[in-house]
């Protein structure tokens, strides 16, 4: 299996641990990815206007690069990137006029992109494609007995056109973790928004969300919470400390990228994890469960 890979900004900086662990997991599963030679910021938040094509240029340029790479599939690890690229395709495909306009604004690109030559894929779907059986066989720490709360966030599930699973009742993370030998903890806030970019201007929203989401995961007995989005990750990890400063009774929970957990269960080297990037240190729980 050969596919292109689009890292996006944050995976090269604050979310290095996501990138490293994800690539290590894929390699372990026998999949190697080609990082695009040239890529641009996707814009993070998909522009929801119907009349402004300027905002589609950034994602389309990356999609052009992906097409030129010759691979049919483009892996986007960051869910924000996944969402933006995928929605961009949804917005322009089958609309020759829009494509034409966008191309007029791209001087460097010579390849014409039509909308269906590249398929943007997220890592959960990719792992399912590789096969849950294969995943199962690659796990070495089969008796960790971890109780995991899977947090989906928004960008993989909404809007419906790009959802990787049921927006109301997704199961894909749980399926993957069950195959990896974990016990899934169902918590009702697993698909609710963390407050997203409002951390910048309205951090109180994020605090409120984090309190509810984390509170619900803890209440349902999770040891760890896993997710895929670097922004959710920041909001739910970093902000827990702020909440705890204000409210001593607030119980924290370590947060990991799902690929970090899979890597640990596969017995891959801990130095890919950059635990120093974590605000709530996951190491005590991981040690207790014999994963470190």
């Amino acid at each position: 299996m050969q596919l292109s890979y689009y890292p996006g900004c944050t995976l090269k900086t604050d979310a290095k641990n996501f990138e490293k662990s994800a690539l290590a997991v894929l390699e372990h599963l026998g999949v190697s990815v080609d990082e695009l030679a040239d890529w641009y910021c996707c814009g993070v938040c998909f522009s929801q206007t119907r009349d402004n094509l300027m905002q589609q240029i950034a994602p389309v340029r990356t999609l052009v690069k992906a097409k030129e790479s010759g691979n049919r599939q483009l892996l986007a690890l960051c869910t924000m990137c996944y969402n933006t690229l995928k929605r961009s395709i949804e917005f322009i495909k089958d609309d020759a006029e829009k494509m034409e306009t966008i191309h007029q604004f791209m001087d460097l690109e010579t390849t014409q992109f039509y909308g269906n030559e590249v398929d943007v894929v997220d890592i959960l779907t990719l792992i399912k494609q590789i096969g849950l059986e294969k995943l199962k066989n690659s796990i070495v720490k089969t008796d960790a007995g971890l109780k995991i709360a899977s947090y989906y966030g928004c960008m993989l599930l909404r809007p419906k056109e790009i959802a990787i699973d049921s927006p109301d009742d997704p199961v894909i993370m749980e399926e993957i973790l069950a195959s990896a030998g974990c016990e899934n903890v169902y918590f009702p806030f697993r698909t609710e928004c963390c407050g997203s970019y409002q951390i910048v201007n309205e951090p109180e929203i994020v605090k409120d969300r984090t309190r509810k989401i984390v509170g619900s995961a803890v209440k349902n007995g999770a040891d760890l919470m896993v997710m895929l989005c670097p922004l959710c990750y920041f909001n739910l990890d970093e902000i827990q400390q702020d909440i705890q400063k204000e409210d001593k009774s607030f119980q924290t929970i370590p947060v990991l990228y799902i690929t970090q957990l899979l890597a640990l269960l596969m017995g891959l080297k801990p130095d890919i994890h950059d635990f120093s990037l974590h605000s709530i240190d996951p190491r005590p729980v991981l040690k207790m469960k014999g994963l470190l």
Partner: protein
Amino acid sequence: MTKNKQISSHRISSEDVDQLKDISGVNVYACYQCGNCSSACPAVEFMDIPPHQVIRMVQLGFIDELVKSETPWICAACITCTVKCPRGVDIARVMEGLRQLVLRSDFEHGNLCDIDEKLRKKLPQIALIGNFRKTIL
């Protein structure tokens, strides 16, 4: 907000309403005010006008009040409202439309200097760019 508002055919189908429709491409008239969008919205507690009322006000042509509201700037573009709507109203796009109405009249809503210094250092790019995309561009 005044308590007594004038409604007229002129107001209901004003240019502002048309412009919002052009930007967002949303048919707000499908809304039957079930409130599911507001009920599910993660940020509703912080809004001055809940999402279902935003849609109602567009139906009635109260755009002048909406562009003064904090709601579109509290919206986190999480699309929860849109997937919850039984009538297929894309509320998230209406929120974007309202932001754009303000931003396109030459007016920045956010200000980089307002961001707390300590927080800014910690923030991942994804947060900053996302925020700029919604409040400045």
